[in-house]
């Protein structure tokens, strides 16, 4: 069989997995605090708007969200296969398109800020 193009989806998966590992737990904790009613000062509209308004902030947010979406999509695709779902092409298409749409929307919203 010919050499696979899997690296196209795997490299961003590996990058995203690293991003998720380092960033997502603390971000979840921040919104968790908000869910408990103790909104951290950094999550106020002014602070968040200022952060997302900066070029660096946009890049960081987009990087974290898009790579995390992609990594989750790829892992979920593999998990579907492990759970016995043999329609791998369908799962891959749905999940990767979902990740791409999510990333595009993030970019759109970030550009509006």
């Amino acid at each position: 069989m010919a050499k696979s193009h899997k690296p196209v989806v795997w490299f961003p998966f590996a990058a995203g997995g690293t991003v998720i590992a380092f960033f997502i737990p603390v971000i979840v904790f921040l919104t968790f605090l908000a869910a408990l009613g103790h909104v951290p000062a950094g999550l106020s509209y002014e602070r968040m708007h200022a952060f997302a308004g900066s070029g660096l902030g946009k890049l960081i947010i987009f990087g974290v969200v898009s790579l995390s979406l992609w990594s989750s999509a790829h892992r979920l695709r593999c998990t579907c296969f492990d759970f016995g779902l043999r329609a791998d092409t369908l799962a891959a298409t749905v999940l990767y398109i979902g990740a791409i749409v999510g990333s595009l929307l993030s970019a759109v919203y970030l550009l509006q800020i």
Partner: protein
Amino acid sequence: MSRRPLVRECPPTTWYFRQPRYLRYMSREITSIFVGAYCVLLVVALQRLAAGPAAWEAFLLGLRSADSIVFHLLALAAASYHAATWFNATQKAMPVQIGEDFVPGNLISGAHYVAWAVLSVVILYLAGVF
């Protein structure tokens, strides 16, 4: 004497119940459901942030429900389990050889945990948690 090998099928939907290590693997993989769902929440948050202060405040208020708290606990557990298994795995993917010896794998993974802790503390500080 003829060969008539017997093929045993691997059950495609229940194989992971056969060994505890398979269940641990599936637990690791399932974290992607919760992490992915949380990322969708982040996209929604970005939309609310772009829509203005009223929308953002409504978003923060909307987070305060029992369902949201349960979801956050699951997401936190999932993200943490992902992080731990990821850091433990990196030592396998990137062996560091110095001369004839290899840097102990636990040192490589340990360095990741330390970086994670430092980064998290920095982010918590910047977010005004303390």
